[in-house]
Structure formats: structure tokens, C-alpha cells
């Protein structure tokens, strides 16, 4: 009977289309600081979900609430249909957590540390030992197994943290700034690893590095001051925002650039703005064709005594979209 109930619960868990769900999740520290504010979130199963936001937006707090390291002030969080909390062992058994710059026990060696974690995950020796050696090889720490962890660099600690998050082979990975403090090759390795792991796991990557998000994520949540201000796919984000903006980097006298700005502004359905670096920002306002507008602007550039250094389209710039989201959120004032 017990077995049947357990099987039913497991079946129910596999039927759930989302890996993480939060309802009105709120965390207020000491009745003073609102870290997470009324967050409703659903992370689809099998997705690579980017949790994006500036420093202090509440990304790490959200992950720690999911892990049960912190208790929500209000609301609830669920992972694969199971409620999160300090003693929710079954939830943590399904999560591999990588903290930012992980603090690891310095007196242990990598194999000892991973072995301990294997035991905490309830792995049998015959499963644990081969997995540890595979993981150490995968993260490139096979040559450092004789060193105590305290002798590791930041990058090595992060790589060991990655291995540690994978010891229990969990279906959900929560990685908090996995590329922080890594050199370019280690960063490349981490991003490639995420893409590889995404074939079999749900991955949540909390970061403020937009280029990482651009490369690996298919879904995105943008947090600002504890609130989730956007949830959707990457395509939705780019489509929804900044889709017809472009900017031109120009070389020439300030007067000529100023004159060009005025001429462009006179064109139908186009707004322009010049910043201090001599960059002309063009915004298409009334649904006019992007190509036609650009052709008009380029014609004006050619007519003036200016040379064109570069053109940047806002169509694919996640950064623009992200910044616009933050600006919009701030401008909403009380309506937020």
C-alpha cells in the first residue's frame, strides 16, 4: 500500500509540466528589507531558465528559498510538486546547488569532499566512487585531487562546486552566477557544460551577465528590487522590447552630427537622439518598415560630412531589452 502511494506521488511528480513553481513568494529580512516581493514563477521542466537582475534584485534569496536554506515570510515554493522548507529532504535530493563563489571545507581534498556529499545524497559506494572520478575528470580537476581545497583558486572552487552539484545526479540544477570569477576558457567550458546538461536536466542560472543568458537560456525571468518584472521565453523578450531601434556610431564634427540628428528627426515615423559619444539612436515609432527607415537615415549620413563606424540593431540586444524593462519598472512608480 505504502509502495503504491509512493509510486502514485512519483507519477504525479513526473506529470507536472514545471520544475519550479512559486505562489506569492515573499521574503522580508527582519521586517526591514524586502528581498523577494510577491513572486509568482513557473519554470518549465527541461528548460534553461535565466534568472536575471541587478545586484540585490533577490536572485540568490530566491534560490535559497527554493533550497529551504531560508524560510519565506509569505507564500510558498514548490519543486517538482513538493513544498520547499528547511527539512524538505526530498526537495533537496532533486536539486544540485552551486552557490556564488562557494565556501567549501578547506581541510578536505576534492575526493573526500565529493565522497561526503555522495554519502549525504545516500549514494552507495559502487555508484558514488565512479561518479566522483568521472565528475573530477569532467571539470578538469583530476590533476588537483591531492591538494586540500583551501589551496584552490576561485575558478577551481567553482569547478569543484559544479562537480558537487552534480554528485547526486539531480534533475534540477540551481546555479548562482556560475561564471563569476572565471577566466575566459573556464567560462566557455561552464557555458558549454550547461548546454550539454540542458539535454537531460532543468537548469536555473542566476546571473547579471547578459551575454551568458543570451548564449544558454531559452526562458528568462527578470527580477528588479525583489519583484519578477518579466517572465517568458528569450524570443518573447526580444520581440516585446526594442525590436525596431538601432544606433549608429559616427565620426565627424559635433555640428554635423547634430545637424544629422535634426534631419533624421524630420523623417516620418522616426525619433532620434544623440548621446555624448557621437552615437545617433534611432527609434521607429509608428510601425514604419525597419529597412526603409534605416535606408533613409543612411542616405542622410551619406549626404552629410560624416563617416559611419558601426550600426547596432536593437532587435537582438538582450541588454537593451533588459535595461528597458528596468526603466519601465522604475517609471511605473506606485502602479508597480
Amino acid at each position, binding site marked *: 500500500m505504502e509502495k503504491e502511494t509512493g509510486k502514485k506521488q512519483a507519477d504525479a511528480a513526473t506529470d507536472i509540466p514545471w520544475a519550479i513553481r512559486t505562489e506569492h513568494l515573499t521574503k522580508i529580512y527582519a521586517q526591514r528589507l524586502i528581498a523577494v516581493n510577491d513572486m509568482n514563477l513557473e519554470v518549465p521542466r527541461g528548460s534553461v531558465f535565466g534568472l536575471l537582475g541587478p545586484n540585490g534584485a533577490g536572485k540568490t534569496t530566491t534560490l535559497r528559498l527554493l533550497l529551504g536554506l531560508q524560510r519565506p515570510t509569505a507564500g510558498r515554493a514548490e519543486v517538482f510538486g513538493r513544498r520547499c522548507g528547511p527539512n524538505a529532504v526530498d526537495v*533537496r535530493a532533486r536539486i544540485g546547488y552551486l*552557490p556564488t563563489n562557494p565556501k567549501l571545507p578547506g581541510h578536505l581534498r576534492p575526493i573526500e569532499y565529493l565522497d561526503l556529499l555522495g554519502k549525504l*545524497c545516500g549514494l552507495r559506494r559502487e555508484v558514488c566512487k565512479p561518479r566522483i572520478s568521472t565528475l573530477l575528470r569532467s571539470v578538469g580537476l583530476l590533476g588537483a585531487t591531492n591538494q586540500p581545497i583551501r589551496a584552490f583558486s576561485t575558478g577551481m572552487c567553482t569547478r569543484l562546486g559544479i562537480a558537487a552539484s552534480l554528485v547526486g545526479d539531480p534533475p534540477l540544477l540551481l546555479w548562482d552566477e556560475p561564471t563569476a570569477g572565471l577566466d575566459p576558457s573556464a567560462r566557455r567550458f561552464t557555458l558549454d557544460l550547461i548546454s550539454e546538461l540542458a539535454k537531460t536536466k532543468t537548469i536555473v542560472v542566476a546571473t547579471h551577465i547578459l551575454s551568458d543568458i543570451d548564449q544558454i537560456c531559452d526562458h528568462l525571468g527578470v527580477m528588479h528590487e525583489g519583484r519578477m518584472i518579466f517572465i517568458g521565453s528569450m524570443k518573447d523578450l526580444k520581440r516585446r522590447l526594442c525590436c525596431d531601434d538601432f544606433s549608429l556610431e559616427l565620426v565627424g564634427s559635433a555640428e554635423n552630427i547634430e545637424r544629422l540628428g535634426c534631419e533624421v528627426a524630420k523623417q516620418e515615423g522616426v525619433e532620434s537622439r544623440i548621446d555624448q559619444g557621437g552615437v545617433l539612436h534611432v527609434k521607429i515609432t509608428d510601425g514604419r518598415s525597419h529597412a526603409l527607415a534605416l535606408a533613409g537615415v543612411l542616405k542622410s549620413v551619406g549626404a552629410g560630412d560624416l563617416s559611419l563606424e558601426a550600426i547596432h540593431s536593437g532587435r537582438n540586444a538582450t541588454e537593451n531589452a533588459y535595461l528597458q524593462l528596468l526603466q519601465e519598472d522604475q517609471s511605473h512608480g506606485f502602479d508597480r
Partner: protein
Amino acid sequence: MDSTDRMSKLATLMRPYTAICRHDLRALWQSRPVRLWLAATVVLTLLATLGNWGKLQDAPLIATLLFPYLVFPWFFIVIALGVTPVSGSQAETLADGILSRPVTRYGYLLATWAGRVITVLAVFYVVTVPAIMLVTLAKRPPAEDAVTVYGIVTTLGVVALVLTLIVSLGFLAGTLLRKPLLAAAVLIFLWYPVNFVLSTFSLEELSPISLSQATTTQLRRQWLGGDDESKTATNKEEAEALLRLGTNLSSMLFGGQTQQSKPGYFEPGKFEDFSLVRVTLGYGAGTLIAVGLAVLCFCRRDL
């Protein structure tokens, strides 16, 4: 489900916690403070034994060996061992490394508590038991003493209970105050005055200083025997004393008049109504309360 299945299920369930306990034990035994402490206890015990070899009878000499654990100086080491696991920078390492894994908080705390208690008691027994055997079995110049095996075993048990209480108080202080140095300082500044306060309120059963004085009596005790009448009288006295203990404890905490203990109790050299049950209950309850509060506090804490 047969018993083998149950045992296997229990073993699987307990695997993470035994791993934590073993990890903690290994870390402790590899740490310099614990090794130095062990060396220092060996040296001090040796000095105390050899220094009093021809002077003291068995019971006072054994009491001298136990004094450092009950009063000074090993008390500080035991507190320091208890305070560290869940406080200060340790908490961050814990959250990142262990508590984000499939273990419960209370399970973790109890496993580390067990590791600390085992370490403290191992140091205590490893050093004192051979010394006590040497003292009791060797032929020495002082007159023969009536120390009993029962007395030695129960006294060692009671001292172990006191040490367990101190580790538990360290755990509680470390969990509540979060800063290891502050927790140790608070505990030290509370512990010594508390003996005086306990004495004032006739709560000697909870005072290690008084206990240290009473060990000679307990060491000479025989295994409980006698007729039914004397057993009934003893039980009645125990019940009265327990009632007095409870009343005095509540008086101390919430105000009110205290009942004085019977004259002669814990007077130097005269501890005839020393009660093992009361002492065990006093320290045992204290330990349970301290561990319970530490677990409660740790489970409600944000990491």
C-alpha cells in the same frame, strides 16, 4: 516487511547523518586544539597522579583527577568545541556545502552534537580510566580506601553527563548568538557565577563545583541494596528532594521563597544524601533542554 528490510531502510536513512558525524569526528581529531588538549590532559593527569601518589587516598586522588573536567581548566575547551559548528563563518560553509544537500537541519545538528560529545568523552575516558585503574590497583603508601567499582562507574558517568551538558550549552549559545567568541565569553561569564547562584537557591544538584566536592562520597558508595523499608524511605526522600528541586528552580526563575536543603548536604566531606538520580535528572534534563532549544533555534534560522 521483515526486520532485515527495516534495518536496511534505517541504515539508508541514517547514512547521511553517520557520514556527518564521522566527518566531524575526523575533522576534530585532525585539528590542532583537540590534539593539544589531549596532550595537555595526559600531562596534567600524570602530574596530578604522581604529585599525590603518596599523599592522598584513592577517592580524593580520583576526585582531584576529575576536578579539571568539572571546574577548571578543561571546561573552556569543552565550551569552545561546542560553540563552533553552527556559528560564524562556519554557517556559510555549512549552507553551501552540507545543508543544501538532502539532510534535515535537526539531523545535521544532532549528528555534529554527537560528534562533539564523542570527542569530549573519548578524551575524558582515554585519559582518566587508565589513571583511575592505576590509582586503585597499585599498592600506594596511603591507607586503603573503600572505593567501589560501582562508585567509580557512576562517578565517571556523572562527569560525562556534565561534559555533555557543557557541550550542549555551547551548542545552544553558538546557535543563539551566532558569533563563536561572543558565545564562549557569555557562557564562561554565566557559568561560574551560576554555581554561586545555584548554591544560594539550594540547587546544588546542578552545580559542578558542588558535584566535584561530592565525588569522594559517591566513589565510596556500594551498589544499592538493603531491605524494602529502607528502599521505600529512600524513594520518599528522593521524591521530596525532586519536588524541592523543582520548586527552587521555579523560585529562582520566577521569584519566590526557596526551601533550604537538609543541613549537612554537600558540606565539605559530608555528602551522605548525595543522590545519583537527582544529579542525573538535573544534568540530563539540562542537556535535553539545551539541545532541544538549539535544534529549535537552528531550524528556524535563515542561512
